[in-house]
């Protein structure tokens, strides 16, 4: 019961101070604003909605403008190289419930985590390999996103 009271108080506090900075690449949502309620079960439900709301969703440490982890930064840089600047980025460092919640939701132990069209793609290693072997250009195309590197690929063939 105490946990619930504490969690609710936290939500009300952070809800009152919602600020959604607009970044040049990726929209950054305050983690609290993306959730309506704060219990663990609700986080799972909210995550289900969060990953489907945008074509590309990244759970990371820090923000695209200021990543706080080399692996999270690598994901941001790869997306930038492909010209993907419309994506949702959630900073797990802002919210420990989200940080643990997304690991449970994806059944994946580490951050960053990347979702395409609501489907979990993987972490930094997988995104990097997809970038290197050309799969990322293809997957972005399936999302209706034309990668900046798509033409470069075509020219090299």
């Amino acid at each position, binding site marked *: 019961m105490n946990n619930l009271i504490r969690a609710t108080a936290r939500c009300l506090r952070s809800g009152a101070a919602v600020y959604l900075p607009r970044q040049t690449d990726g929209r950054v949502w305050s983690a609290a604003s993306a959730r309506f309620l704060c219990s663990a079960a609700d986080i799972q439900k909210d995550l289900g909605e969060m990953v489907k709301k945008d074509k590309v969703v990244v759970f990371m*440490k*820090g923000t695209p403008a200021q*990543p*706080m*982890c*080399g*692996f*999270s*930064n*690598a994901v941001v840089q790869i997306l930038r190289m492909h010209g993907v600047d419309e994506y949702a980025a959630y900073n797990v*460092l802002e919210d*420990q419930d989200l*940080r643990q919640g997304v690991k449970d939701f994806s*059944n*994946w*132990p*580490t951050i960053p985590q990347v979702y395409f069209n609501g489907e*979990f*793609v*993987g*972490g*930094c*290693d*997988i995104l*990097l*390999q*997809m970038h290197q072997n050309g799969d990322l250009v293809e997957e972005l195309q399936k999302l209706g996103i034309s990668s900046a590197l798509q033409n470069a690929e075509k020219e090299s063939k």
Partner: protein
Amino acid sequence: MLPSVLRCARPISTSLALSRPLAHFRPHMDPDPSRPVERAIRTKLTDQLKPDHLEVHNESHMHAVPPGSESHFRVLVVSSQFEGLPLIKRHRLVNEALKEELSTCVHALAIQAKTPEQWASNSTIAKSPPCMGGSKGDHTVEEKLKAGRE
């Protein structure tokens, strides 16, 4: 035959001198008793994935954690069990094998999962991106470091 004859004929002091520089050389593949987490990772991956080739690198020194930590690792696993599996499934197999370590003391795990054929055509291990200091002041990492020490 000739080299072994020469070896026997060599004075003992010379042979010791030759071996001394190598005395402290520990190839990174050798299990280190003072690094229990690394040993556990190697054991579990070997038992569960029966790899043709396995590399376990402790990259904690590249991150904002105290010296001697065992919190950040990079593994390269070459196994025929990965054949026909997409990357995500391969990584999930590795995660599953190291479930306990990942929930207690390992904070970061970089994975390369190749089939023997892929390894044969490209025998390189990737490099981790530079640390951006996120582990400093992160109490989740502190808890994991504590768990690793116990």
